[in-house]
């Protein structure tokens, strides 16, 4: 079998329509996502089957809401308790600032090689490119991230970054980029990647990881993972830098188990992950391993702006499980790259406009049929469809105007069309007349209605409207009663 070719592709949310067109026309992408999403949906359904899921979701939502309600206070407590534990805390207002802070820590240790655990916020701020520009090599150690990096792509899913690739494609990438023997044996490939990464863990100067839950009351950083690469990243190199968005803080240690239970089951259908790391300090006197320094970089990057709005605030509840994308009929068909954002799928469509602005992302809030599957499965009950509608409102300039790029889609013609619709629907006599007229003139109705009729027949107005049918029906009945 010939090696699949993998041209370097870049994606932009501005190109959503073109990228969707390409993905829809790519049978491999369609099949890979459909199969993977069907599997993930079934696993989630099975594992929650003997749980009181609604009670657990309610609990999860309330834990996150309580944390957000106290966010400024919790962040200060987190900083104080981390500092007391010997973890150095840094604040970054933007992704660029976070990159700079991380680079400076690396440079202070003369670091040339960085090993990375999985971190979506580092993807969001393009950390790898920033470090590489400064002559620091950053290698991803999560298997999916490693494959995506080898293939010069970005993750297509927040939990399973290489979900767009099938076994043959992965084999081709490992062969082309690392000389691994071509095979369909998944265990062989995993072992090969493991061996390749193992050397790099030993040689890395700095380990960089994300954070799933940062516990304010104890100053503990929790990291959820399956491959042990997170533990290696955070224990082997002499310096560990954890980077996270400010919303990941929770108040108490006891808040973690319910969120963890929801996270693993919603994400991959697992009762627990293979590894659950709780990082509380650097190596202590007398200890034989662990990093000598631990840093925590707290990134705002638009989040405090979301926080100001009592409705949009719900966006920050997210625990990044990916269940919304797994259940999204749009994501399932177009895949993650089509969105052109770090966070794809429904959560991406409500988060990315705040991170990138609505000019860039204006096609994302509309890329949903509002079917509600995302909101139904969200473990912390984020009302995703309502937030999509809110962002549509912001896009057309009828919101509060506090989202970057608000009003970008306001078009005079569309406003006029809705105003006309409003006028018609608030003048019942004219409405009835128009509806009746549409039925009478149906021969004049176009049989092609733009994109609708590309694949469907045009709906035909009925000869008689319901208004008229009911009138006639009541008259007949009345006559009947009189006779």
């Amino acid at each position: 079998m010939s090696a699949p070719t993998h041209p370097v592709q870049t994606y932009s949310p501005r190109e959503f329509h073109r990228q969707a067109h390409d993905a829809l026309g790519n049978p491999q992408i369609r099949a890979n996502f459909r199969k993977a999403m069907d599997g993930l949906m079934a696993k989630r359904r099975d594992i929650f089957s003997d749980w009181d899921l609604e009670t657990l979701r309610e609990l999860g939502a309330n834990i996150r809401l309580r944390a957000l309600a106290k966010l400024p206070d919790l962040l200060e407590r987190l900083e104080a308790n981390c500092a007391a534990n010997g973890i150095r805390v840094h604040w970054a207002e933007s992704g660029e600032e976070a990159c700079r802070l991380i680079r400076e820590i690396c440079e202070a240790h003369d670091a040339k090689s960085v090993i990375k655990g999985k971190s979506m916020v580092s993807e969001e701020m393009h950390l790898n490119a920033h470090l590489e520009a400064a002559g620091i090599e950053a290698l991803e150690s999560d298997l999916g991230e490693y494959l995506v990096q080898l293939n010069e792509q970005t993750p297509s899913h927040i939990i399973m970054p290489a979900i767009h690739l099938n076994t043959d494609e992965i084999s081709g990438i490992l062969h082309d980029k690392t000389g691994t023997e071509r095979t369909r044996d998944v265990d062989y490939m995993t072992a090969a990647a493991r061996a390749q990464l193992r050397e790099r863990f030993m040689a890395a100067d700095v380990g960089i990881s994300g954070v799933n839950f940062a516990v304010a009351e104890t100053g503990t950083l929790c990291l959820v993972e399956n491959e042990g690469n997170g533990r290696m990243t955070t224990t082997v190199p002499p310096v560990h830098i954890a980077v996270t968005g400010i919303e990941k803080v929770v108040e108490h240690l006891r808040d973690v188990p319910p969120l963890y239970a929801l996270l693993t089951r919603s994400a991959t259908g697992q009762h627990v992950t293979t590894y659950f790391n709780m990082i509380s300090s650097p190596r202590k006197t007398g200890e034989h391993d662990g990093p000598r320094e631990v840093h925590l970089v707290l990134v705002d990057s638009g989040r405090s702006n979301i926080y100001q709005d009592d409705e949009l605030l719900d966006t920050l509840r997210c625990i990044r499980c990916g269940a919304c994308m797994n259940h999204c009929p749009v994501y399932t068909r177009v895949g993650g790259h089509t969105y052109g954002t770090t966070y794809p799928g429904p959560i991406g469509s409500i988060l990315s406009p705040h991170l990138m602005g609505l000019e860039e992302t204006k096609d994302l809030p509309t890329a949903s049929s509002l079917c509600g599957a995302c909101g139904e499965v969200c473990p912390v009950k984020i009302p995703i469809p309502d937030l999509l509608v809110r962002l549509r409102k912001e896009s057309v300039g009828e919101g509060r105007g506090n989202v970057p790029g608000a009003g970008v889609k306001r078009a005079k013609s569309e406003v006029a069309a809705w105003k006309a619709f409003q006028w018609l629907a608030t003048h019942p006599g004219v409405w009835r007349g128009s509806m009746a007229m549409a039925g009478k003139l149906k021969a004049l109705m176009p049989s092609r209605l733009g994109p609708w009729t590309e694949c469907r027949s045009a709906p035909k107005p009925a000869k008689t409207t319901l208004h008229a049918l009911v009138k006639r029906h009541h008259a007949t009945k009345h006559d009947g009663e009189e006779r």
Partner: protein
Amino acid sequence: MTPVKCYPPKPERVYFFGTCLVDLFYPEAGLDGIRLLEREGIEVLFPQDQTCCGQPPYTSGYHDEARAVAAAQLDLFPEPWPIIVPSGSCGGMMRTHYPQLFAGTPQEAQAREVAGRVFELTEFLVHVCHLRLEDRGEPETVVMHTSCSARREMGLAETGPALLGKLGQVELVEQARASECCGFGGTFAVRHPEVSAAMVEDKTQAIEATGATRFVTSDCGCMMNIAGRFEHQKKPVKGEHIASYLWRRTS
């Protein structure tokens, strides 16, 4: 999560809100819904000044316009009778989104009161009328497609199938991925036509794979989409609103 709804006893009268899609494209479905209610001894009031629930501008982000349209409907139901809507989509708009849309306006209380009286037709037939049906039709296999709004916004995944289950001669078969959206989504089908097309293609394939030549739905948006796709492909599968299907087989 749909709150648990306490159902009232069967009333003497109800209001019927036909919806604009039914009014224009599927008026018989609306009339059949009215007939089913009347057969249960309920007088059906149809306010002639009704137009549209306001959902199209609402989901497009034009909330001032949606509010104006919705406000024009609020006064049409002055008596405390239930308001029956033959659509989960428009029913969900009125029940779930009217209170949000009018929050903080002088009509908030009225919107809440109206929303509390809104019932989707199959919901009302099952839970309030406790409908009994005598099937007079030929044996037939059908597929039910429950709209996403009925299923998720109104929590009514079961009422359509429950009604079809009362038809002795009808075998109800389940399509693969029954809970997946058909791809209509109102303006979604126009703004993202290619994605929508891929979704409806999969939906028609799932329905066709059951071997049934008829699908029944409680939402005319889904019907327009799915049946439109079948018709375009010149496939023999037909769609029918559940009200018409029930009336046709039992009258």
